[in-house]
């Protein structure tokens, strides 16, 4: 059972958030502020009030001499009126004790956020069975646990970019590519026992027993390689490189491990398996008009995103927490990086996205809604999967959330944009419906009802695009037409109506996750993804997304792909 909703979780965050403002106001002789007051003093202190903005300005001053031209200068803003006319307040990462400045949550300033995306796009899953069949049936080679261990030892030498078979090769510095690794996982416990522990993702140890059994049953006796190529490779190239890089090293390793001829046609079978027949990309290739290869964020389905996040195995009893870590991961990747940078190049996307994973607001609304559903229907995923239940749960959750914004002016101010409020209210409604019923489509129905009720109550919603996406959205919830009728888990960032607006895709991923978290499922969409991202050797901690973002913001996170080893010291 989730934490019972006994108090408003965002109050502590708001008190932390506005503590400095309250001190400032008091020092100016203005009555001590209260988070429920509708009026306040605006001190217009400019950027100097923020430690981070001061750091930026000081650094920019140093750079100016070095660069010989101007750069960062907030005083060019609005004819000399810099930002900071209102108090600049920090953000608490939801569910953690991290409090960071807003700037620290821009992905450029946050190495953990970058690493999350790097860890996804540098990952590829390749089946071993097809290659083993080629070796055994076509080449007459013996494949045993011993040969597999030998192969994996060679592969963990080769995959980072080192030579096998060939002479006089240029290799990568191990210190630059130390995040690269390959482990295997299988539903066959007997085989897993025979593989050297260092090369195995041990499903039995990493997952709760019931989840491990479910994943093993789904995988069966097949064996898969969870491959993570070096971060520095995908940062220099892109996600489309991952399958090429890995396939090359896989083939070279097979040649070495099984004493093959380097030029024989059988190698083509191994390459075909590694690049196409036995491969699972993290995301689909996009249509030509979006011009991105596979393993780029635009093709990443919500179901895969839900399975990459691992909170479902570390905190299975708290489906809200599971869903909200998915929301955080999705908001950061889809909003800040995909729509905000790949597709748009804007600065404002960080503000949009952070509303969903800071200051315990979405947490509070979700716990309220889920507790309401649990009280009424007797547990997670116990409510009937009907449109009437979506209507009831979404209306109640949305109403509660709107009332909090109305009752706490600092909360409204925290989510100062309508898109932020719309996303948070609809996500809470959708997650409540999904956890309550265990059905993602009912969750989606709740999302859209929240949008309509929100607009009706306040006479405003989000940015222009919300008009289309959310007001006509109910028609695609239960549609089975080919261009719009997928289950939510199989929809993704490039689904027709979803490709335009921030504040949606991460939340849709959260709703996908919520349905399965409510049902206590081991995975939402694909067991291979869930198993692969359980790899403890990943740099980003996919079980604690928000905590990792906080570490990144607090400058406590070490990302991979550092080039300091081969550059002069600063």
């Amino acid at each position: 059972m989730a934490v019972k909703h006994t108090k408003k979780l965002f109050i502590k965050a708001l008190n932390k958030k506005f503590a400095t403002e309250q001190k400032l106001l008091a020092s100016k002789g203005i009555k001590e502020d209260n988070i429920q007051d509708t009026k306040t003093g605006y001190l217009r202190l400019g950027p100097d009030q923020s430690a981070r903005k001061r750091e930026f300005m000081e650094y920019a001053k140093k750079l100016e001499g070095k660069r010989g031209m101007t750069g960062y200068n907030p005083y060019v803003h609005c004819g000399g009126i810099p930002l900071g006319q209102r108090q600049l307040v920090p953000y608490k990462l939801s569910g953690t004790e991290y409090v960071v400045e807003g700037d620290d949550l821009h992905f450029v300033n946050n190495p953990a956020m970058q690493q999350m995306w790097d860890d996804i796009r540098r990952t590829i899953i390749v089946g071993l069975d097809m290659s083993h069949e080629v070796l055994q049936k076509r080449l007459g080679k013996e494949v045993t646990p011993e040969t597999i261990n030998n192969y994996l030892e060679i592969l963990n030498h080769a995959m980072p970019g080192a030579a096998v078979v060939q002479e006089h090769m240029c290799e990568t510095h191990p210190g630059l590519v130390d995040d690269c690794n390959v482990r295997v996982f299988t539903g066959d416990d007997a085989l897993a026992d025979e593989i050297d522990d260092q090369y195995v993702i041990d499903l039995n140890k990493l997952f709760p027993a019931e989840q491990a059994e479910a994943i093993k049953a789904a995988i069966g006796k097949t064996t898969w390689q969870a491959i993570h190529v070096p971060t520095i490779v995908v940062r220099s190239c892109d996600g489309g490189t991952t399958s090429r890089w890995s396939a090359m090293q896989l083939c070279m390793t097979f040649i070495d491990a099984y004493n093959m001829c380097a030029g024989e046609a059988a190698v083509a079978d191994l390459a075909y398996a590694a690049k196409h027949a036995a491969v699972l990309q993290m995301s689909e290739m996009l249509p030509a008009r979006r011009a991105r290869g596979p393993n780029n964020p635009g093709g990443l389905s919500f179901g895969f995103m839900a399975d990459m996040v691992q909170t479902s195995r570390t905190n299975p009893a708290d489906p809200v927490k599971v869903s909200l870590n998915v929301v955080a991961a999705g908001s950061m990747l889809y909003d800040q990086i995909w729509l905000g940078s790949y597709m748009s190049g804007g600065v404002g996307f960080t503000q949009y996205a952070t509303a969903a994973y800071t200051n315990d607001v979405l947490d509070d609304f979700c716990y309220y809604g889920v507790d309401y559903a649990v009280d009424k229907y007797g547990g997670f995923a116990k409510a009937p999967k009907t449109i009437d239940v979506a209507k009831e749960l979404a209306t109640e959750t949305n109403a509660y959330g709107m009332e909090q914004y109305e009752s706490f002016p600092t909360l409204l101010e925290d989510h100062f944009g309508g898109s932020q409020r719309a996303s948070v209210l609809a996500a809470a409604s959708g997650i409540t419906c999904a956890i309550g019923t265990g059905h993602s489509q009912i969750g989606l129905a709740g999302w859209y009802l929240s949008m309509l009720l929100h607009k009706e109550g306040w006479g405003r919603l989000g940015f222009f695009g919300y008009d289309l996406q959310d007001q006509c959205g109910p028609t695609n919830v239960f549609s089975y037409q080919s261009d719009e009728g997928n289950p939510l888990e199989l929809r993704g960032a490039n689904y027709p109506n979803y490709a335009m607006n921030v504040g949606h895709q991460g939340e849709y991923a959260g709703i996908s996750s919520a349905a399965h978290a409510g049902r206590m499922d081991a995975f939402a969409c694909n067991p291979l993804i869930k198993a692969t991202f359980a790899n403890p050797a990943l740099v980003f901690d996919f079980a604690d997304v928000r905590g990792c973002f906080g570490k990144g913001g607090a400058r406590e996170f070490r990302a991979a792909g550092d080039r300091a080893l081969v550059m002069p010291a600063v």
Partner: protein
Amino acid sequence: MAYTPQYYPGSTSVGINRRKHMSGNLEKLRDIPEADVVSIMGHRAPGADYASTHPPLKEMGEPDCPIRQIVAPTPGAAAGDRVRYSQWTDSYYFAPSVPYWRSYWGAINCKGCDPGTLSGRQIIEARERDIEAYTKKQYDSEMTDVALCSMRGCTVHGHSLRLEENGMMFDMLARTEMGKDGNVYAVKDQVGIPLDKKVNLGKPMSEAEAKKRTTIFRVDGVSMHGKVGARKYDEAVEAMHHMWDLRSKWGYRPE
């Protein structure tokens, strides 16, 4: 029997006010001189000629067609005016109008306009002399309170922020200010360029007056949902449930 538009459901003051905005049957509260409205809009100097993007329609030799016979051009279109805008920001704290209702008002009552609706701002674009007339109507009517609403072409931040201690909506660019005489003055145009002379916009509404005229449902005013544990849905919610239900089912089975 002639059709009488119903516009909006509900018997609360919010429902009634929403119907008033949509019908255009609005009370006039003040009379801001045209020249002052033009200077706050900032597109042309008061008294200056209108810039045009094409000759007057009468000189264009347009082809005859049934649509041209049915639809008379607006004065701005007839003269060939360029298209300009006015954009409003309305506070959450009981501003009389809200973005969708400004848009509905424009779409229903203002010929030849293009409303755009966001959360923190609402824009209407139209031919220049037309938008000037539409803007004056908004300024003068009960749609607008001079402390809780302001024209902001850019840097609109403020609709959801706490009010200043004097009851004004926060504005980063401080385009309006509260005078010692209790009147609100516009000191900058829509995009924050200082005006040659301050424009007296008059006194703001009292909180009670704003609550009476608002089109916002709020738990501390007219609630749309009743309260936690004692839900009582406004007719607006029931209407929206009905529409959502039909839209969802139609998507499953379009017929």
